[in-house]
C-alpha cells in the first residue's frame, strides 16, 4: 500500500517526478486558455501597464521640464528655418498717413517667424482703426505679411464741441482734423447727434447744390432736424421728416421769388403746411413803413 501521509522529506525525495499538474496549475492553465482572460492578459494588461508607467514617469516635474525643453527646442529650430521667416509687410490700399499708423499698430520687428504671427489677431486689431473700413491679412510663404486695406472715404466734416472730425458716408469717424480749411471740399455739419444723420445730411447737401457757395453748413437741432445755415446769417429751418422735399420747396420759392436774396434771416419750414419767414431788421422797418404809407399814417 502506498503511504497515505505525504510530506516527509525522505518520502518526497523518493517520489519520482510527477508530470501531473497540480489543481492550481490546472486551473490557471484553463483560465489562460479561456479567450476573454487571454485577450485581457495579452492585449489589455500590457497596454494599461504601459500607459500607467508612462503616466507615472511623465508626470514627474523633472521629466516635464525636460520634455517642455525638447518641445521648445524643436519648435525654435523649426521656426528658425528660413522657409518660415517673414521679412516684410506689404501694405496695399492705404494712404501714407494710414500706412504709417498701421505699421505702428502692427509693430513687428522683421524678420518674424511664421508661427509667431496670427493673421486673425492682426486683422482684428487693425479693424479697430477708425480709418479702416475693411482689412485682409494673410501670410504668404514667400516671406511677406500681406495687408490689404480698404480705407473709409471721408464724406463730411462734423464740428462738435470737442473738435472737428472727418466722417464717412455712414457717419463713422475717419479721422480728427485740425482745421476746416484742411478739407474745404467737404460739406460741414455741426450740432450734437450730427454724425447719426450723415446720410440725410448728404442728401440735403446734394439737394442744396444750386445754392452753391452760399451754403455754409447744416446744423443739427435737438438731434432731430436740420437747420441749413447760409451766408449772411440766413437759416433755413427744415422739418424732421421730408427735409429734402422742404429743401426743394425753398429752392423753388427762391427761383420764383428770389427768396434767399432778400433780407430774410430765417425761412421756417418746420411746419410744411405753414412756411414762415423771419425778415431782417431793415426789411422789417421797410415793411412797417410801407404799411404806414398804405394806411396814410406816414408822411414823407
Amino acid at each position: 500500500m502506498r503511504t497515505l501521509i505525504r510530506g516527509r522529506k525522505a518520502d518526497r525525495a523518493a517520489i519520482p517526478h510527477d508530470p501531473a499538474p497540480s489543481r492550481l496549475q490546472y486551473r490557471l492553465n484553463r483560465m489562460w486558455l479561456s479567450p476573454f482572460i487571454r485577450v485581457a492578459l495579452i492585449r489589455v494588461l500590457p497596454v494599461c501597464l504601459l500607459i500607467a508607467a508612462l503616466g507615472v514617469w511623465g508626470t514627474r516635474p523633472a521629466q516635464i521640464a525636460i520634455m517642455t525643453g525638447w518641445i521648445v527646442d524643436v519648435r525654435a529650430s523649426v521656426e528658425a528655418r528660413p522657409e518660415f521667416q517673414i521679412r516684410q509687410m506689404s501694405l496695399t490700399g492705404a494712404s501714407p498717413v494710414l500706412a504709417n499708423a498701421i505699421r505702428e499698430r502692427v509693430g513687428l520687428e522683421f524678420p518674424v517667424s511664421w508661427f509667431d504671427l496670427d493673421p486673425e489677431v492682426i486683422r482684428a486689431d487693425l479693424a479697430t482703426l477708425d480709418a479702416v473700413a475693411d482689412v485682409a491679412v494673410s501670410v504668404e510663404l514667400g516671406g511677406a505679411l500681406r495687408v490689404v486695406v480698404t480705407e473709409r472715404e471721408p464724406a463730411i466734416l462734423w464740428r462738435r464741441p470737442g473738435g472737428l472730425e472727418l466722417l464717412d458716408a455712414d457717419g463713422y469717424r475717419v479721422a480728427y482734423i485740425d482745421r476746416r480749411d484742411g478739407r474745404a471740399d467737404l460739406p460741414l455739419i455741426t450740432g450734437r447727434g450730427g454724425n447719426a444723420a450723415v446720410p440725410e445730411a448728404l442728401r440735403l447737401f446734394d439737394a442744396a447744390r444750386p445754392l452753391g457757395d452760399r451754403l455754409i453748413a447744416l446744423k443739427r437741432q435737438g438731434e432731430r432736424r436740420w437747420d441749413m445755415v447760409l451766408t449772411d446769417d440766413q437759416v433755413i429751418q427744415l422739418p424732421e421728416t421730408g427735409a429734402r422735399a422742404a429743401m426743394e420747396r425753398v429752392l423753388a420759392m427762391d427761383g420764383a421769388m428770389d427768396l434767399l436774396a432778400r433780407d430774410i434771416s430765417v425761412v421756417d419750414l418746420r411746419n410744411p403746411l405753414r412756411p414762415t419767414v423771419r425778415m431782417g431788421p431793415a426789411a422789417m422797418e421797410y415793411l412797417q413803413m410801407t404799411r404806414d404809407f398804405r394806411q396814410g399814417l406816414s408822411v414823407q
Partner: protein
Amino acid sequence: MIQLFETQRAMRAMRKAAMQRGVMGIVDLGTSKVTCLILRFDSGHMPETEGVGSMAGQAQFRVIGAATTRARGMRHGEIEVMQEAERAVRTVVQTAQKMAQVRIDHAIVSFSGASPRSYGLTGEVELGGREVSEADVAAVLANCDTPDIGLGRAVLHAQPVNFALDYRSGLSDPRGQLGNSLTADMHLLTVDQTVVQNIMHCMRRSDLELAGLASSAYAAGVSAMVEDEQKIGSACIDLGAGTSGLSIFLRGHMIYADTVRIGGMHVTQDISKGLGIPVALAERIKTLHGGLIATGRDDREMIPLTAETGDWEHDRREISRSELIGIMRPRVEEILEAVRDRLDAAGFDDLPSQKIVLTGGGSQVPGLASLAARILGQQVRLGRPLRIQGLPQAATGPAFSSAVGLALFAAHPQDECWDFDIANQRYPARSLRRAVKWFKENW
C-alpha cells in the same frame, strides 16, 4: 430510475450546450491509459458528396487535440485511488488542451469497469389504430417492464433496439405508421452506481462538466466494427488492460454488453511473477517480444532479463521467446475462454452471423487472431478504429478504438430512452399504481 433519467437528461443538455460551443472533450478512462480527444464541431461545413463520403459521414467534427497518459489509480476500469485518477485526468486534459489551444468545459467519459449487466426489456402500448407519434414511442419505452436491477446499480444505457407494430417486427422507426399495438424492445445496461459516482466526482474535481457516459465496450464496438458487421450481428471484444469488454451488435444496435475482469495487465503480472522481474520490464518484454504461437525459431531467440540487483548471475539471465509465449498463452486463452462463456450465455450462437472483432490494446499480440479463431470460432478478425479527421497517427491503433468510438458516439449519440419525453399522464399513474400495489402487499 426516474432519478437517473434526470441525470442522463442533464447530460444530454450538456452535450447540446457543448455542440453549440463547438468544442467537446472525450475522456476514455482505461486501466492502463487515459486518453483525451478534443473535438471541434463545425456544423455549417459539411462536405457535400454523393452517397457515403470517404469519412463515412463523420466529417462534421475534427480532432484538434489528443493526448494519452498512463492511467494511475485505476483497477479493472474503476477508480481505485481518487487523487491519482484525478491527476491522470488533469494531465491528459491539460496536454490535449495545450495541443488544441482551446479550453474544454464538457467531456464525455467512457469507462470499462463497473461490471455492466445487460437486460432485454419489452414494452407494449395500445394504439387503437391511430398513427404512432413520438409520445407513443416515449410511452412504450416507459411501459417497458423494469427488471429488478439490484441495489446500488444504475442504468448506463437504455436504448430502444427494435419496434414492432402489430405483427410487423424489425422496425427502426415506427413513427407515422398506423397500427393497433406498438411493442418496443429495449436494451438496458446497468452498472455499479458507486463506480459511476466516482467517475462523475473525478470529472467534477477536474472542473469538467459531464456531457455523457458510455461503456467502453460499446464505444469500441461503434468504432472497430464496420457498418455491415453491426447490422448482421457480430461481437466486438475490446481487450483492455484490466478488463476485456464485449459488446454484441445486431441491426446497428448494441444488444448485449459485458466485461470479463481479466486483461492484458494480468498477462504482464504473470510474466513478472513467472520470471521474477519487475512489472515495468515484464510489460516491456511483453510488448516487444510477446506472442501466442510458438515456432521452432522462438527457442533460439533469447530475451535478456537485465536487472540492477548486483548479483551477476541474476542480472544476466536470459529466456527464450518460447518460454515467454508459454507464460502468455494460457492467460490469453483464459481471457478468450471467459469471453466465449459470456458469448454463449448471451446466446451469440443464435445470431445470423457470428462475426467477432478483436480490438483494444491486447489485440496487438502476434498470433492472437489464430488463437482466437481456435476458441471463438472461425469468423475472427482484428479491428482497428475508424479513421476520423485530425486524429494523430499515434492514436490510430486498436488501443484507441474506444476513444474513437466515443468521439463517434459524441457526434451521433444513439437514441436513448431518456431522449423521449415521457407523457405527463403516465408517470403519476404508474406511481399511483405502485403505491396501491405496496398497500396491497403490506396491509
